[in-house]
C-alpha cells in the first residue's frame, strides 16, 4: 500500500486536462457523503479498498493449480486424516461458521489452547495462525495434521490414506505425478518425527516417533514429499477462500467514480463508524490495508480465559517455530528458497517484546466468527468494542512490551456506529462449491 499515489494520480489527470485544453464539461461536484470526509480522510479510505488480487506464493508452485485445489479440498474435508477418523480440517474450520467453530478454544482430538482463526481471505496474510508459526499456507496446513490436540494423525498415515483410495490417488497423481512408492515400504502407517517441544518433554506419540526413527532416509524423504504435496494442495484450496465486494467496497467505488448510488451502499451510521475507525478510535492503526490487518503481531492486553496474567507466549514462540522448521519458505521443500518470503523468515528475531503478541485478525467477513480473540475470550463484537472502549480487565504488560491501546470511552452511539461499519465489511457470498467436499459439489473453480 502506498500513501499519496492516488491523489497525485488524480492531480496529474487534472493537470493533463488543464494543459491539453479545456474539458468539454466542468468537473462534476464531488459526490455527497453522509459524513463530510476531509480530503485526507478520503485518501485514507481509498487505500482500504478494493481487496487486491491474492499475493503470489512462489514457495508453492501448485498454489494456483486448479487440480491441486480440488485435491486439497478433498483432503480438507477428509476425516480419515485424524487419529480417531472423526476430525477433519473442516471440523474446526467449519464453512458454516465462517471457517471457525463457534467455540472459545478449538476442539479436535483434545481441547486446544487457542480459538480457531477464520480462513476467509487467509491467503492475504504473510504469517499464518495466531502466532505466525507458519510462513505459508502450505506449511501451516501440515501442522494440525500431526498435532495430538488437533487431528493427531501422522504423515505416514496420510500417505497410506492417499495410496489406498483410488480416487484420491488418481487426483494426487494428476497433479504431482506418480506417488513415490518408496513412501510405502515397510509399515510407516503411524510414523512421524517428534514435534517441537516433544523432543525435550518426550513425544506425545512415542510409538509413531520410534517408527519414524526406524525408517531409512530414503523412505522418510519419500513420505515427506507426499506430506508436503498434501500441504501445498490444501493451500491451493484455501487460496480460493476469498470474499471481498462488501458494501464498504461499493462505497469506496462510489467515491472513486463519483457515483452517489454506490456511495449510498454505506449507511450514514456506518459512515460515522468509518470516520471513528480512522479517527479517534484509530482501529486502523493495526487493522490497516484492504484486508483490515497489518498482518503483524500485537499485544492488546486482553483478559485471559483462565483469569490472571497471560501465559501464552504467542509470537515469541511462533517466531522460534517458523524459523526452525524444515518446511519454512527458506527450506528445501520451498519452491522459492531464496525469494522474499525466505528472506523474511531468515531475518526473524525472537525478541522478548514479542511475548504475548498475536496476529492482527482481518475485520472482513466477521459474521459467524464469534467468539473473538485468540482465546475466544470475547463472546461477540459488542464485547470486543466494549473492551477497546473501557479496557476493563486488561492484563498488565511488562515495561518492555507494546503499548498501543488507550481507553477510548466510546458513547453508546459511537459503539453503534462502529458496529454498523464492521457489518459493512461482510463480503459477497463464496461459491457454494467451495464449502463442501468436492464430491458433494461442483469443482472448486
Amino acid at each position, binding site marked *: *500500500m*502506498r*500513501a*499519496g*499515489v492516488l491523489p*497525485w*494520480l488524480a*492531480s*496529474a489527470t487534472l*493537470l*493533463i486536462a488543464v*494543459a*491539453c485544453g479545456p474539458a468539454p464539461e466542468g468537473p462534476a461536484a464531488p459526490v455527497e457523503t453522509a459524513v463530510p470526509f476531509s480530503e*485526507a480522510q478520503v*485518501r*485514507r479510505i481509498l*487505500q482500504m479498498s478494493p481487496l487486491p488480487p491474492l499475493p503470489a506464493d512462489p514457495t508453492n508452485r501448485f498454489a494456483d493449480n486448479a487440480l491441486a485445489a480440488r485435491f486439497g479440498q478433498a483432503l480438507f474435508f477428509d476425516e480419515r486424516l485424524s487419529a480417531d477418523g472423526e476430525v477433519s480440517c473442516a471440523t474446526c474450520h467449519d464453512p458454516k461458521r465462517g471457517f471457525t467453530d463457534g467455540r472459545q478454544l478449538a476442539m479436535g482430538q483434545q481441547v486446544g489452547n487457542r480459538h480457531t482463526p477464520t480462513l476467509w481471505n487467509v491467503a492475504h496474510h504473510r504469517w499464518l495462525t495466531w502466532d505466525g508459526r507458519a510462513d505459508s499456507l502450505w506449511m501451516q496446513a501440515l501442522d494440525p495434521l500431526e498435532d495430538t490436540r488437533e487431528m493427531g494423525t501422522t504423515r505416514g498415515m496420510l500417505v497410506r490414506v492417499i495410496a489406498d483410495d483410488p480416487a484420491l490417488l488418481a487426483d494426487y497423481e494428476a497433479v504431482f505425478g506418480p506417488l513415490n512408492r518408496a513412501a510405502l515400504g515397510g509399515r510407516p502407517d503411524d510414523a512421524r518425527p517428534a514435534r517441537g517441544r516433544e523432543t525435550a518433554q518426550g513425544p506425545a506419540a512415542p510409538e509413531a516417533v520410534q517408527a519414524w526413527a526406524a525408517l531409512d532416509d530414503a523412505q522418510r524423504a519419500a513420505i515427506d514429499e507426499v506430506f508436503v504435496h498434501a500441504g501445498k494442495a490444501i493451500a491451493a484450496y484455501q487460496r480460493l477462500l476469498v470474499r471481498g465486494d462488501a458494501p464498504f467496497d461499493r462505497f469506496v467505488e462510489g467515491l472513486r467514480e463519483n457515483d452517489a448510488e454506490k456511495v449510498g451502499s454505506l449507511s450514514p451510521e456506518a459512515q460515522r463508524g468509518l470516520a471513528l475507525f480512522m479517527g479517534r478510535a484509530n482501529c*486502523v*492503526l*493495526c487493522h*490497516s*490495508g484492504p484486508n483490515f490487518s*497489518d*498482518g*503483524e*503481531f*500485537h499485544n492488546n492486553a486482553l483478559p485471559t480465559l483462565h483469569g490472571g496474567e497471560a501465559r501464552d507466549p504467542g*509470537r515469541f514462540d511462533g*517466531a522460534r517455530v517458523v524459523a526452525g522448521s524444515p518446511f519454512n519458505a527458506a527450506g528445501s521443500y520451498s519452491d522459492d528458497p531464496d525469494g*522474499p518470503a525466505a*528472506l*523474511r523468515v531468515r*531475518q*526473524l*528475531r525472537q*525478541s522478548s*517484546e*514479542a511475548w504475548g503478541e498475536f496476529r492482527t485478525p482481518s475485520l472482513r467477513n466477521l459474521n459467524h466468527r464469534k467468539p473473538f480473540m485468540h482465546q475466544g475470550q470475547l463472546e461477540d463484537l459488542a464485547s470486543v468494542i466494549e473492551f477497546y472502549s473501557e479496557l476493563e480487565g486488561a492484563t498488565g504488560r511488562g515495561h*518492555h*512490551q*507494546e*503499548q*498501543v491501546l488507550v481507553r477510548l470511552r466510546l458513547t453508546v452511539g459511537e459503539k453503534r456506529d462502529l458496529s454498523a461499519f464492521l457489518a459493512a465489511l461482510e463480503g459477497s457470498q463464496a461459491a457454494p462449491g467451495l464449502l463442501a467436499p468436492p464430491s458433494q459439489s461442483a469443482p472448486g473453480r
Partner: protein
Amino acid sequence: MRLSIPVILSLITLGCGAGEQDPPASDAGTSVADRTDEPASPEVRGETLEALSSGGMFIARITPLVDPMPMNEAFSVSLSLIDPESGAPFDAYDAVSIDARMPAHKHGMLRDVGLTPQEDGSMRADGLLLHMYGHWELHVDVQKGARFERAQVSVRLQY
C-alpha cells in the same frame, strides 16, 4: 507500478504531445561529468536522512531505495558511515547494524536486517518493514571495542 511525482509530471508532459525541449546540459545546472557519476540504471531513491551518533564517532546517512517509504511493505536502504571530522568514509568499527522502532508503541520490526557491503563503500539493507503509520526511528548502532554508539533518524509514515 509505483509512480513517483517526477514520473507523473513526466507523463503529463508526454501526454500533451510536443512540449518544450529539454534545455542543453550546460543550462541545466548539472554537468555531463556529474551525470556520468550516476549508476547506469539509477534506482529510485528517497531523501537521504543523516544523523550524528550519540558520542560523535560517526555520521550515518540512510537513503531509502524507494520513494516514499512504504507502509507495511518490505523495502531497502543504502547506509553510509562518515567520519565527522574528515568527511571520509568511516570504517574503523567492529560491528554495525540497522533497526527501526516505534518509540510510542514500544515495538519495532522484530527482524534482523543484514547489511551487505557495496562496491562504493556503502552498505545495503534489505527487508526493512514499517508496518504501522506513525513515528518510527531508524537506528544505526556501531560497536568499536567497548564503545557503542547510536545514530538515530526519525521518520513519520503518513497516509
